[in-house]
């Protein structure tokens, strides 16, 4: 009797160790896009390092860092088209920034100021950007997966060429919403790309304690989805795999579970990997690097300093948005006692 489960495929890659690019993927990456991805990954790294520092200083309560996962996050976001939707989990603030969320808006969100779009209701939770269909998600693990499937399913029933990308970590594959969401995606053929950042650990718990098979993409088989393993430190491979999955899904070919395999950043740094490629392509040098790092650091510092000094929301804003009409939200909602 033959079992379906087998050893996982080696993750797909595009960037070679010497900085050159597998010619099969060369078409995915113009000079302009290569530089834009790199600049954004440096921004993401800088934001994470600063916010982790502020959290350790006790200035902000929490921050979920994505250091080492920039290629998976930014590469996948860059693969989606403007009309597509993106559902982040706790670590994909770089996706909202890629889709156009200004750094200042993100900083106000982090500090929960009066100018935060959530009015300080949900700071510390994933940022959203309505103008570019980056959805509001909670930090609860996996709950956003059915939402992404619902958007994609609705788009499919309305004959719109729209897909949804949903991010989550390896721990989420143990959640009921992962199973439910991917099962619905398979049954409805919703155009969804489910991107799992498999960095081997959910907080402290190793992936072997989440899931028995080695490799998570194999789970796609049982849902009637495509399953792909990709090198999550290789931004070109992620971009290429997610774009292909997105296009196939919109064409009616079904959704995809993408497993982005991400080793510890001490072993492979995705930002350095892309920089080596830019240098090999003569798009980058030490002077440009120095200028970019200084600019990004100054931008991030300015945004955070302004937000840190900004006013808090007025006390009454606690009641805003419970229901559409705040006076209807409860007969005693605003009563001081």
């Amino acid at each position, binding site marked *: 009797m033959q079992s379906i489960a087998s050893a996982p495929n080696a993750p797909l890659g595009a960037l070679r160790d010497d900085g050159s690019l597998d010619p099969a993927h060369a078409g995915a990456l113009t000079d302009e896009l290569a530089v834009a991805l790199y600049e954004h990954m440096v921004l993401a790294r800088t934001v994470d390092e600063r916010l982790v520092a502020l959290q350790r200083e006790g200035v902000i309560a929490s921050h979920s860092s994505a250091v080492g996962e920039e290629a998976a996050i930014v590469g996948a976001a860059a693969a989606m088209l403007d009309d597509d939707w993106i559902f982040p989990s706790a670590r994909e603030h770089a996706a909202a920034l890629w889709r156009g969320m200004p750094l200042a808006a993100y900083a106000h969100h982090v500090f929960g100021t009066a100018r935060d*779009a959530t009015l300080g209701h949900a700071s510390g939770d994933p940022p959203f950007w309505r103008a570019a269909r980056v959805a*509001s998600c909670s930090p609860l693990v996996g709950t956003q997966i059915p939402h992404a499937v*619902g958007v994609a399913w609705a788009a499919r029933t309305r004959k719109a060429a729209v897909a949804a990308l949903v991010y989550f970590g390896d721990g989420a594959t143990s959640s009921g919403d992962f199973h439910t969401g991917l099962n619905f995606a398979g049954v409805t053929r919703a155009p969804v790309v489910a991107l799992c950042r498999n960095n081997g650990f959910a907080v402290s718990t190793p992936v072997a304690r989440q899931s028995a098979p080695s490799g998570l993409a194999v789970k796609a088989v049982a849902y009637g989805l495509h399953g792909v393993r990709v090198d999550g430190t290789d931004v070109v491979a992620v971009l290429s795999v997610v774009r292909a999955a997105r296009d196939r899904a919109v064409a009616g070919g079904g959704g995809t579970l993408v497993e982005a395999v991400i080793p510890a950043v001490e072993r492979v740094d995705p930002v350095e990997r892309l920089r080596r490629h830019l240098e090999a392509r003569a798009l980058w040098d030490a002077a440009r690097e120095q200028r970019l790092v200084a600019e990004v650091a100054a931008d991030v510092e300015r945004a955070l300093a302004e937000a840190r000094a900004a006013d808090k929301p007025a006390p009454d804003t606690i009641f805003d948005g419970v229901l*559409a009409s705040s006076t209807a939200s409860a007969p005693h909602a605003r009563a001081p006692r």
Partner: protein
Amino acid sequence: MTTTQMNMVQAINDALRHEMRRDDRVVVLGEDVGKVGGVFRVTQGLWDEFGDDRVIDTPLSEGGIVGTAIGMALYGLVPVPEIQFADFIYPAYDQIVSELAKMRWRSGGEYTAKMVVRTPVGGGIRGGLYHSQSPESLFIHVAGLKVVCPSNPRDAKGLLLASIRDPDPVLFFEPKRIYRAAKGEVPEGEYTVEIGKASVVRPGEHVTVLAWGAMLYEAVAAADEARKQGVECEIVDLRTLWPVDVDTIVASVKKTGRLVVVHEAPKTCGFGAELVALVNERAFVHLEAPPVRVCGYDTPFPYTLEMDYLPLAHRILPAMLETARY
């Protein structure tokens, strides 16, 4: 206005059909809601008229039904998911409580997930432990939801039209014991019953009785008996449980000075507790007797002894009389 005699099932079906014809964004989804028309036949005929992109048989997962409906709502549709029995809603509880109820608040109003979750509630149909419960207080306790429970066909249609057009997520509890037993004249076409407005179904001067859904009829039957003994009850059908019509309740208690609350759910932390607290806060000096709750017991819902569990007229009557004579 032309009216037609209907039961609750027909009135709710009429409301769904009316809204689906009026608004292309309205979609129905759930377990067995399509070709077969739902286990109570509430969605019967909708699949034939609107097709399987708008009347959707889903996989058997309540969390998936509500979770994907949230995505549909984000996209711009107006989902009306059906949970086959309220007893089955708990796999969707996280999606309702953590996601649906909080979407507007956590996004500063930039995202909403407006939908109407329909589900049959209550006992008295030999449904037993897992087909009879009344979980309304678990949802009223969660900020961000509206909770509706009609008691008659006219209100059922009017409240469902209002719920589908309301900007907020609504839990629409359908008392299954009176799905076919409650009949009445229902206006054809367009009308709404305002969410948040109770109805004084019988005026009276001695005791205020708050009830909703199937238990309203038990309160009325008990009030008929009380009248024979000289006690006139004012019966208020809450219709909307949240936001509750506190003004109508308080005005009635200020008139009668006495309060009886009836509900099927267990007494402890049931909605009756909140109603009594609201009255105490707002009409304490008008009370002539301690408020009384006549409720389900603090047990799971029993199969064999369900008529002993339910707060039927024979249990409500003594409460009315004792309160009146306190």
